[in-house]
């Protein structure tokens, strides 16, 4: 997509923030990215209305940090709803001054603006000090802490991203939902998992990473002393049980867990194999050097966390037992 720059030149837009920025439409967002030159970033928005999921926001922020403030700008007409980009801290990562004037105390909302987490101490501080900004009940806060705790740790441990983990979250009152996006510009999932598992492409790497018990640090069952390979499976399962979208984007691949339909009664069934979950996948989106993980969490649909853990744990055990059984010797019938 091209747009006329204030200087009069026509420039290529690298990121377009549309009026439909939710996880359901994440694939369109990813497809529209132009990632050919990581050293320069041009962001534009829909001229009448802009809706941004934390997923889109953290991708924009991660790429802005990678390109550097002086090489990043927001151009074109930004509508009034673009004020949100300022509140979430995107303008601060660009050389474009914010056109929005408001007092900081007007920021009374339930959101976590773009944060950069580079160390485990940063992560602990973030969990303790920043999650309360969402003003969630204790029970719901635990789930959000859990999700962010696991996902940020994945970045710090496996991504080798020099810019750390970029995190943002938003509570939506109307739908009683929390949306979370976590992004890095590190080595990506394929490279992270390739040492032991050799997936043939990015989408296979993502799906392997979603299988409980598969970790990029060993092939041994039970993992290493520090890794069990359960983190992403847990988060995907939380999204499924709470009937929400879950997205991973890494390399040229994107996996989206589709929303479990409300008309289907009972708790959604969990599967160890991500192929069995209703999902969409592609291996042909613009190549993103890094990883994005995003999830929505409907607080109305969230059962007791303990119940969630128990269900997820059962599938984890079952998955190990099935792998064990797959290695059994079989009788020779002649």
């Amino acid at each position, binding site marked *: 997509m091209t747009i006329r720059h204030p200087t009069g030149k026509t420039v290529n837009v690298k990121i377009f923030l549309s009026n439909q920025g939710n996880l359901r439409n994440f694939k369109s967002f990813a497809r529209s990215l132009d990632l050919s030159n990581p050293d320069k970033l041009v962001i534009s928005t829909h001229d009448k209305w802009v809706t941004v999921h934390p997923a889109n926001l953290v991708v924009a922020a991660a790429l802005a940090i990678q390109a550097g403030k002086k090489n990043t700008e927001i151009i074109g007409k930004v509508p009034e709803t673009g004020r949100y980009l300022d509140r979430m801290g995107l303008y601060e990562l660009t050389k474009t001054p914010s056109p929005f004037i408001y007092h900081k105390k007007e920021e009374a909302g339930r959101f976590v603006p773009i944060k950069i987490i580079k160390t485990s101490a940063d992560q*602990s501080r973030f*969990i303790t000090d920043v999650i309360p900004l969402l003003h969630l009940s204790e029970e719901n806060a*635990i789930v959000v802490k859990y999700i962010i705790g*696991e996902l940020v740790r994945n970045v710090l441990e496996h991504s080798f991203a020099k810019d750390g983990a970029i995190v943002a979250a938003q509570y939506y009152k109307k739908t009683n939902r929390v949306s979370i996006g976590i992004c890095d510009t590190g080595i990506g999932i394929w490279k992270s998992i390739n040492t032991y598992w050799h997936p043939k492409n990015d989408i296979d790497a993502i799906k392997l990473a979603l299988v409980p018990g598969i970790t990029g640090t060993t092939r041994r069952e039970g993992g290493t002393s520090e890794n*069990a390979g359960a983190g992403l499976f847990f988060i995907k399962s939380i999204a499924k049980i709470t009937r929400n979208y879950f997205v991973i984007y890494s390399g040229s691949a994107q996996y989206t867990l589709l929303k479990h339909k409300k008309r289907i009664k009972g708790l959604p069934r969990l599967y160890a194999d991500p192929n069995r979950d209703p999902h969409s996948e592609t291996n042909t989106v613009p190549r993103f050097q890094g990883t994005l993980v995003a999830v929505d969490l409907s607080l109305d649909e969230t059962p007791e966390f*303990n119940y969630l853990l128990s269900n997820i744990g059962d599938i984890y055990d079952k998955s190990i037992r099935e792998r064990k059984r797959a290695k059994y010797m079989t009788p020779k019938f002649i």
Partner: protein
Amino acid sequence: MKKTIKMGKIVNDFAENKDIAKKIRVEIIMPALSKGDEVVLDFYGVSGATQSFIHALISDPIRKLKDVAFDNLMYQNANNDIREIISMVYRYMQESLDMNKDEE
């Protein structure tokens, strides 16, 4: 001898920092269990924990010390969520112990 580790004083409200888990495991749990001491992990004041944290804390003692860990590692004041995660780690570590033993 019994060694009690007050987790709430080390990890704050929510236990997710695996570096801390590793430090507790390497510096306190493993040496104490190896000496034959009992270790009590007291979760008073801890409202939640990630599976990664608990794995980093106790999977190695289970894998390396097996029955010694099962007999001498104990948990106090763990709420239901933390109990569920600890139990999960116990289950999958035992499943994988059997499996890895079979492969040896």
